C-alpha cells in the first residue's frame, strides 16, 4: 500500500518533470524540471532499497551535470526564450514527429509482446540488505561487467583528452590563435 503510494507519487513527479523539460520556454526552467525528474528517480531508487544509487543519482546528476548545464546556459546567455522558428532545420519538426511516434510504438509493442518483465534483467543482488548495497554494486561492476566498465572509462578519458586538445592554447601569449593556424 505505502509502496504503491510512493511509486505513484514519485512517478508523477518524474513525468511532470519530464514534460516540463520539453514544454518550458526558458532553458533554465527546463534544467530545473530535469532536476525534478532526477529527484523522482532517486525516490524510486530508495523505494527499491538502492540507497547508494539514489545518493549517486543526486550527487552526480543533480549536483554536477545539471549544474554544468546551468553554468553553460548562464555563461552563453541563451536564457532568453528565443524565436524557435528561425533556428529550425527544414523538415525537422516532421522528422521529430515521425521518429518520436515510431519509437513510442516500438516501446509499446515491446511491452505488449514481451509481457510483464520488459527488459528481463535481474537486479544485481536481489533484495540487498541496506549495508551491502555498495559491496554488491562494486562486486558486480568489477567482475561481471568489468569490460563494459573499463571501456566506458576509456571512452570518458578519450572525451576529456579530445576536449583538452580542442580547447588548448599555445603557452606563450604572442603565438597565433588556434583559428588562424587552421587556415593553412
Amino acid at each position: 500500500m505505502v509502496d504503491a503510494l510512493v511509486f505513484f507519487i514519485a512517478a508523477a513527479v518524474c513525468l511532470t518533470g519530464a514534460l516540463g523539460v520539453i514544454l518550458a520556454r526558458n532553458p533554465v526552467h527546463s534544467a530545473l524540471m530535469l532536476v525534478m525528474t532526477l529527484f523522482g528517480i532517486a525516490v524510486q531508487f530508495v523505494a527499491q532499497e538502492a540507497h547508494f544509487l539514489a545518493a549517486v543519482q543526486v550527487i552526480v546528476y543533480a549536483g554536477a551535470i545539471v549544474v554544468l548545464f546551468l553554468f553553460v546556459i548562464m555563461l552563453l546567455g541563451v536564457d532568453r526564450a528565443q524565436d524557435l522558428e528561425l533556428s529550425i532545420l527544414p523538415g525537422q519538426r516532421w522528422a521529430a514527429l515521425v521518429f518520436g511516434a515510431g519509437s513510442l510504438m516500438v516501446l509499446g509493442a515491446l511491452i505488449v509482446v514481451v509481457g510483464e518483465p520488459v527488459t528481463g534483467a535481474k537486479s544485481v543482488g536481489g533484495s540487498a540488505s541496506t549495508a551491502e548495497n555498495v559491496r554488491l554494486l562494486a562486486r558486480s561492476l568489477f567482475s561481471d561487467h568489468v569490460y563494459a566498465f573499463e571501456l566506458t572509462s576509456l571512452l570518458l578519458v578519450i572525451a576529456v583528452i579530445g576536449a583538452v586538445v580542442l580547447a588548448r592554447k599555445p603557452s606563450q601569449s604572442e603565438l597565433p590563435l588556434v583559428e588562424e593556424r587552421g587556415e593553412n
Partner: protein
Amino acid sequence: MTGDPLYLDGVDLTDLGIMLIKVLVAFTFLLVATMFMVWFERKLISDMQNRIGPNVAGPWGLLQTFADGVKFFFKEDLRPENADPLIFRLAPYISAVTAFLSFAVVPIGGSFGGGDSGTVTIFGRETFLQVADPPIGILLLLAMSSIAVYGVMLAGWASGSKYPLIGSVRASAQAISYEAALGMATVVVVVLAGTLSTHGIVAAQSGGITRWFLISSGIVPFVVFLIAATAELNRPPFDLVEAEQELVGGFHTEYSSIRFALFFLAEFMNVITMSAIMVTLFFGGPAGPILFGMTWFWPTVWFLLKVLAFLFVFVWFRATLPRLRYDQLMHLGWKLLIPLILFWLMFISLKELRAAYDWNWLVTYGSAILALAVGTALLLAALRAGDRVYREELEDA
C-alpha cells in the same frame, strides 16, 4: 549493527514522539547556534581588529543577531523588475532547507567504545543521538552540499541583473571544482571506516586519540577537507561569490528582507554543519573522557567544544587571510588539491588492501611505485610530444 535500534521492533507512538523531539531539538539547536555564531564571529573579528563590535543589544551585545532578525522581518521585500518571479522566491528556500537537512546525519552525542555502541536511553527506548542514521550517511551530506549550489546559482540568475549573475557563475564553477576534493577526502575516511553511516564512522574511531581518522589517515585528507570545505561554504578566503569590492553583494545583491535573512541563516548554518562534519569525520565525533557521572552528558559537551574550535578557525580565516584571485582559486583546486587527495586515496586504499590480504609489503609498494613512475614518465612524454607537434605546426603556419 545497522541503523538506529529505535526502529528495530516496529514503530509505535513512543518512537514517533522520540523522533519528533529529536527533530525539534536539532532544529532549535541549529537556529540558536546560528544566532550565537553570528554574534561570535562579529565579536571575535572585532577583537582581532582592535574594535569593540556589537555591544548595545543585551549583555555583551548577545542579542544583536536577534534584533537584526526582527528588523529583517519588518523590512520591505523587494523584487527587481527583471527577476524571474518563481525562481527568485524559490532560491532562498533551497539554501535554507539543504542547510537544515545536512545536520540531520551528524551524531551529536552518545558514548562510543568500551561496551557502548553510542546509544542513549530515552523513555525506555535505546536510540542514537542523531536525527537520522541512513545507510548512505555521509553521502547525504555530499548530496545536500551539491544541491545547496542551486540556491546560490539560481538566486544570482533569477535576480536578472549583472553582479548577481557573475556571482552565481563563479559560485557554480567554484562549487564543482572543490566538491571533487571534498568528496575524495571523505572517501579516504570511508575506506578506513568501512562504512558510509556517520554513526559507524564515529564508532570506528572510538578508543583513544590515535584511533581518530585525523591521525590514522595521515592528516592530509583533513587539510584537504578543511580547505575544500571553506571553499564550499564560500567563506573567506574563498568568498569570490560575494566579493563586496567587485560584485556589490554577489548573488544576494538584489535580495532584501526575510529572503536575504534566509541566505544569511543558511550560510552560517552551513558553517556549523561543516564544522560538525569535520569533527565527525576526523576528530572522533563526541569522543572524549567521561569525567564524572552522567555518561550521556559528557560526549555532547566534547562534541560542542570541538565544533566551537572549528567555528573559531573559520572566523580566524576570515580575519587573517586575503581573498584568492580567481585563477589562484582554480589552480589550488584542480592542480594541487585534487591530485594530492587522489594520490593519498590510492595510497590509503593500497595500505588497507595490503593489511587485509596480508600481501608482502615490498612487492606491494614496489610495484605501486613502479606503476607510478611509469605512469608519470608516460604522461611527461605525452606532454612533451604534444608540445613539440604543436610548435612544429605553428612554425609551418
